[in-house]
C-alpha cells in the first residue's frame, strides 16, 4: 500500500504509487506520464480500485497555463480517469497529458472493460485515439461526421437568432 509521501526536498511534488500527486479541492489527483499510465492502472486495480467511474478528456487549448505539479509537462489534451474503490470508499483521479501532435494513448479496456463506451466517446468528441481498443468508432455523432465537436477549435455552429419585426405574418391561435 503506497501512501502519499511528502519528500524532504520541499520543491519536489508529493508522490503516490511513484507518480506525482496533487490535491484538487480535497480530491487526490495522480499525474502519470503516457507511458506509465497502464502500469499505474494495473497497480490501482490490484489496490482495490476496481471500478472505473468515468473516463473523459479536456482540451486545454485556451488554458495552457493551468496549474500542474512540478515535473508534469502540460499538453493540449488531458485524459481524465476517475477511479472508485468500493472497499476503501475512496475516489482517485488520474490526469494524463496527451500531446496534440500525437493524440494517442493506450486503451484501458483490458483492465476496465467499462471504459469501452467512454473511450469511444472521447475519440468521437476529441479525436484522441486509444490503441488496442476493440472497436474505436464514433459513438454519438453519425458515422460520416467530420470534425471532433468538443475540441475548442471546433465551431459550436450556433445560428444567430433572427427576429422578424412583423408578428402578424404568423397565424396564431
Amino acid at each position, binding site marked *: 500500500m503506497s501512501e502519499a509521501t511528502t519528500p524532504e526536498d520541499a520543491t519536489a511534488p508529493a508522490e503516490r504509487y511513484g507518480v506525482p500527486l496533487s490535491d484538487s479541492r480535497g480530491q487526490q489527483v495522480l499525474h502519470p506520464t503516457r507511458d506509465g499510465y497502464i502500469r499505474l492502472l494495473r497497480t490501482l486495480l490490484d489496490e482495490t480500485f476496481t471500478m472505473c467511474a468515468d473516463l473523459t478528456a479536456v482540451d486545454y487549448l485556451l488554458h495552457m497555463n493551468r496549474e500542474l505539479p512540478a515535473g508534469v509537462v502540460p499538453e493540449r489534451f488531458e485524459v481524465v480517469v476517475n477511479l472508485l474503490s468500493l472497499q476503501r470508499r475512496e475516489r482517485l483521479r488520474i490526469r494524463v497529458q496527451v500531446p496534440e501532435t500525437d493524440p494517442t494513448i493506450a486503451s484501458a479496456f483490458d483492465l476496465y472493460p467499462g471504459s469501452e463506451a467512454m473511450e469511444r466517446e472521447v475519440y468521437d468528441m476529441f479525436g484522441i485515439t486509444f490503441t488496442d481498443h476493440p472497436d474505436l468508432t464514433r459513438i454519438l*455523432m*453519425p458515422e460520416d*461526421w467530420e470534425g471532433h*465537436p468538443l475540441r475548442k477549435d*471546433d*465551431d*459550436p*455552429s*450556433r*445560428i444567430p*437568432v433572427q427576429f422578424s419585426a412583423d408578428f402578424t405574418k*404568423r*397565424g*396564431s*391561435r
Partner: protein
Amino acid sequence: MSEQKGIVQHLLDDGMNGLQHNAITARLEDLVKWARSRSSWPASFGLACCAIEMMATGAAHYDLSRFGMEVFRASPRQADIMIVAGRVSQKMAPVLRQVYDQMMEPKWVISMGVCASSGGMFNNYAIVQGVDQVVPVDVYAPGCPPTPETLIHAIETLHQLIEDGQLMRRRQETGAGANVHVTEIPAGAQPVPVILGTR
C-alpha cells in the same frame, strides 16, 4: 310481463316511415372528415423529455382516449398523426424522414415542444434547428416540455382543422404543412378557454 322491445325491433316496426328519425344523412366528405378527426392514431415518435409528457397526456389523468388517440401505433403504416416529441439530432433526422415517408396519406405532423419546433435551447451543431427542416409541420406546440394541456390544445386544434377540411386542401396545393402556432397553457388549476376552428 310487459313486452320489452329492443331497438332493432323498434326500427323494424317503424319501417319506411321511420327514415325521418332513424337515419342520418350527410355528405360523404363531411362524414369522412368527421371520422378522420375523431379517430386519428398517433405514431409513437417520442424522443426525449417531451415523450414523457406525451405519455402523461395519454395516461389516466389527462386522458387522450377521449379524443380517440390513446393507441400509439408502433408501425407508421397504421398511423395518421406523427407527434415529434423531443429534440431531433443529426443522426435521428434521416430516421425521422424515413418514418414520415412510411406513413400513409392523409398524415399530419405535430411538432411538440420548442426543441422540435425550432431547436429550442440547444442552438448548436448537434440538433436540427426545427423539425420543419425535415418534415412539413402542421401544428407547433411550444413549451419545454409543453404541459399536457398545451399538447391537448395542439391536438384539438389539429382535429378541428381536419374536420373543417382546411388541412387536406392546403396539403394538396403546396405539399407544405399548415404552420399553425398555438399558445402555451401553463400548468395550473384554472381551466383556460380556447377557441377552436372557424365554425
